[in-house]
């Protein structure tokens, strides 16, 4: 990996390239890397995408830069419409079948995932926050997209401890079609043949090192390539316009390094006053104008 860009820049670029113009794209809880990628897509090749989000409960076509404390600036201040959560779950998601990037705590070779518990469910080694709506949407999304910010054998497992997201059954009908794409901090993958398959290695990463960090034998594309680096324009947009505080990189950190970085960003936002921007649409402000 060269010093020109971070792995989160690269992953954001990869995710952005999976977004087509006109898509409806969805962001789950605590996924700033995905948000940076969607904004990047919008500002490059996919001007007409519509965003929907777990945070904000809103549909948006306008955007604002990423923020930690003021995350609602994007989702509420710029909303085409705010929805109730049941409207989103019972109506909009099954109807629009949007493109969504899921971040699994565990994933098996077939795209089944776990975000509920590590170890025995009733006495877990690690209780996870829960699967949100992954157990719902993966039963009807036609295509699944994943990202893994910290590739390791804890995440890529032969057998899940708990299946809270539906991939494909090995050899089942439509197996090849449903799993579509996965990007980690080491490479990009498809599900050709219904199984996770390495398609590109990130610059400086070998397929052997990826296999070593993967808990099952990896299929490898015959024309294995290197992941294209983000372009200069993509980097400029990410750093100067879309996410100047580099909030997207938080997902690649853990433990004390993560807390330190969060404190740094929170203080930056406080001092620059960016945590609650202006420019909100008038009807959200009406009650405060009097």
């Amino acid at each position: 990996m060269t010093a020109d860009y971070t792995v989160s820049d690269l992953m954001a670029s990869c995710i952005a390239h999976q977004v087509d113009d006109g898509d409806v794209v969805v962001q789950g809880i605590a996924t700033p890397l995905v948000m940076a990628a969607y904004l990047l897509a919008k500002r490059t090749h996919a001007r007409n995408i519509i965003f929907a989000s777990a945070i904000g409960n809103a549909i948006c076509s306008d955007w604002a830069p990423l923020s930690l404390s003021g995350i609602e600036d994007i989702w509420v201040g710029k909303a085409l419409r705010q929805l109730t959560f049941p409207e989103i779950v019972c109506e909009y998601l099954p109807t629009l079948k949007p493109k969504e990037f899921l971040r699994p705590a565990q994933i098996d070779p077939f795209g089944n995932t776990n975000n509920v518990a590590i170890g025995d469910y009733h006495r877990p080694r690690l209780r996870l926050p829960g699967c949100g709506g992954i157990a719902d949407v993966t039963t009807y999304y036609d295509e699944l997209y994943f990202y893994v910010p910290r590739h390791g054998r804890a995440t890529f497992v032969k057998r899940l401890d708990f299946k809270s997201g539906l991939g494909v059954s090995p050899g089942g009908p439509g197996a090849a079609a449903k799993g579509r794409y996965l990007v980690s901090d080491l490479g990009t993958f498809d599900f050709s043949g219904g199984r996770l398959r390495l398609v590109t290695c990130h610059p400086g990463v070998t397929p052997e090192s990826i296999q070593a960090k993967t808990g099952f034998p990896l299929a490898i594309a015959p024309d294995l390539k290197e992941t294209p680096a983000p372009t200069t324009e993509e980097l400029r947009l990410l750093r100067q316009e879309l996410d100047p505080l580099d909030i997207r990189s938080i997902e690649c950190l853990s433990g004390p390094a993560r807390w330190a970085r969060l404190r740094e960003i929170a203080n930056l936002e406080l001092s620059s006053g960016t945590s609650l921007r202006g420019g909100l649409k008038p009807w959200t402000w009406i009650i405060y104008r009097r």
Partner: protein
Amino acid sequence: MSKIITLREAALLVRPGDILALGGMTLYRRPVAFVRELLRQRVGELTLLELTGGFESDLLVGAGLVRRVRTCYFGLETFGLAPMFTRLAGSGGLEVIEETEATIAFGLRATLAGVGFMPGQGLLGTDILAVRPDIELVTCPYTKRQLVAFPALRPDVAVVHCQIADRNGNARLLGNKAIDRDIALTANRMVLTAERIVDSPADLGGEIDLLGARVTAVVEAPGGAKPTSCFPLYPLGSLEILDYVLACQREDFAGYLERFLGSD
């Protein structure tokens, strides 16, 4: 007959053993001031029903007031795992009823429609059904397709923090709408805490999200969501959330709670 009462009086509407539904989500527009009062009064044996559990939910869990949680996500988002939920759910000290977005959304809609279930897509093929033996399947009489019959959900008491309300409890919600309207309509008792209370609906400046006819009590609570956000009045208090995470990290939940209860 005004519905406006104090936080202390309002907390009495929650009884030990209640299914308590909290409005907002995770770190956004949570009824934190109300939860502080519940923690003071130590109302326990609660079942927490939430779209997503976050900061104040973790305080209730850590203080031992929660017997059971029903939610599809319990954590602090970018700030990491919810420390006390993670510990107690891991040690068996807390019952978790595994929910998803659909079990909550369709479950509330079933109650709203006055029926025992709503059919929907979701769960089939996952292990959620294995740990939710109470959830039944139903066959669509037209397509013969097997669907999940999401069972009706009804809170005993719902608590929602809003930006502005009138004296009757008609209220506007800015920011995430979450499941607030739905818990407000289905709960047997409904408490509204508000940044600001105005005299009449005409002073609300926009369409209501919550209908006063279903609101039991209204409490004035400026800053009542802090350190969670109350869009657009104040942002998320990221440093305060970090302080909580780090206090738990150094095994000082008790000290944090004492400081939290001392503040107002």
